[in-house]
């Protein structure tokens, strides 16, 4: 079954046509995955609302600068009319409708914001996961980094005694071995 994909962001941004929005909402009502995606986009939009766009990472800026200007206005013929799709959009918003067949790198200003938003969301998720793992891991063991001289002979005795308790173990041999290995 098809999922909303980029259309989730378009839905949150109010970019869909009336019919497309109705179809998207009907889909969201029955699809947990897309509902979660829409919720995530909505939370992120709320988080970012009223704030300036976050500064994108240098790599992202480089990628954005590398996008030919023609793909934004279609001057090079790169833009094609929207293809019939489950979640088609109004012709004034061709980018969303063409999401499935969009040429690589062909993103408009809103697309860039969405890409930034997704990057921020991904970074935030990664940061949250890192912090959660760090919290679970806890601080290093206190007092556990001092020099340790393992009592190997004592360990050998514990080993042989445990071994002797095997179903086919030999308690006498285990004890003798642990005793005679003592230096």
């Amino acid at each position, binding site marked *: 079954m098809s999922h909303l994909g980029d259309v989730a962001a378009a839905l949150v941004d109010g970019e869909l046509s009336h019919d497309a929005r109705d179809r998207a909402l009907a889909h969201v009502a029955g699809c947990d995955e897309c509902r979660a995606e829409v919720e995530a986009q909505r939370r992120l939009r709320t988080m970012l609302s009223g704030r300036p766009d976050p500064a994108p990472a240098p790599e992202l800026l480089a990628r954005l600068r590398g996008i030919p200007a023609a793909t934004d206005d279609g001057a090079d013929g790169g833009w094609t009319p929207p293809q019939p799709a489950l979640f088609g959009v109004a012709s004034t918003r061709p980018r969303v409708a063409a999401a499935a067949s969009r040429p690589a790198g062909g993103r408009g200003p809103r697309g860039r914001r969405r890409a930034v938003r997704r990057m921020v969301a991904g970074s935030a998720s990664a940061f949250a996961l890192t912090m959660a793992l760090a919290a679970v891991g806890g601080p290093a063991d206190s007092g556990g980094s*001092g020099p*340790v001289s393992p009592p190997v002979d004592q360990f050998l005795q514990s080993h042989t005694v445990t071994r002797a308790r095997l179903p086919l173990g030999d308690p*006498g*041999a285990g004890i003798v071995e642990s005793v*005679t290995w003592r230096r």
Partner: protein
Amino acid sequence: MAQVRRALAVAAGGVLTASLAGAAFADVSEPASDPRAVQLLAGAADAGRTTSYVGTQVVMLWSDDSQRSATVQVSHRAGTGSLIEVEPTATTAAHRSFEPDGVASAATAGLSAQVLALVAQNFVVTLAGSGEVIGRATDVVAVDRPDGTAAQRLWIDRDTRLVLRRKFYDSAGELVRQTAFVTLQPTTPDFTGVPMPQTLQAADRSTQQASGADLSAFGAAGWRLPSAPAGMVVLANRVEGSGDDQVLHVTYSDGLGTLSLFEQRGRLDASGLADWDRDEIGGVPVYVSQGYPRRIVWDGGDRVYTVVAECRDPAVEHVVRSLPRGHSAGGLDDRVGRGARRVGSWINPFG
């Protein structure tokens, strides 16, 4: 109780026979165990805990170019344990200890069946003829590794089913240990006046197979637990001591051989290992002691590890490679790594 034990022994035999039959159908090109020999092993394991006796045992140990021997008085009372008294010699100090019957309970008899099934899985068990030990008729059972090297030879008393004589070989097939009874009397020893361990129940606990919950709890407490090497099970686990002096002891077994891992907090002080060899196992620098069983010491991740093993090399390498290397600075990376391991242990306590 005796009926329960007999039923478990029969069940153990059934497990072994079934696993042998499966192995025989799975690959007819591999050497197969003889079900009669496996049944003899199962009977010997059962008799070892259900038969009371008093005997004198000679124990000989070989290590490199040295040989040591000792005479031991063994008094076993079924369901209670064994009093073991080592007679002093030039190389052996007098020693007296009481070993509770670790496999006497119904729960651990289940473990007994599992461990014996491992023997059938990891070794080739065959009849090697008959013999006589201290005037008693015995069946000789050969336990070999799949590569054909000898692992053990056992002389099993046809009357009592006890193992009267046994030879142990290392992974290269070299004889490293031999034990033999020179006297044996099936009788119930009198343990009056013998100090029994106060924590018999706790001692018995150490022979039980670790549950997933146990291992998960150890993992959550920050202990690093390698998964069991291929063909082995976690035989026992316990934490001894308190505070920073705690030691985690985990024992893995392939049915006959065992590998113990001891884990301590801290960094290795190698001043006591001057006569040990420096070596590398799986790319990890370690200290290795001469002799048998193998003893290996190294540190990593603010832990000091000691392995004592008389099992195959791949099992040792698996354990060494599974544990952290180097030392952490206690920074974020260390905490994240520790957290990932803990979360991993929640998902898969054996991982």
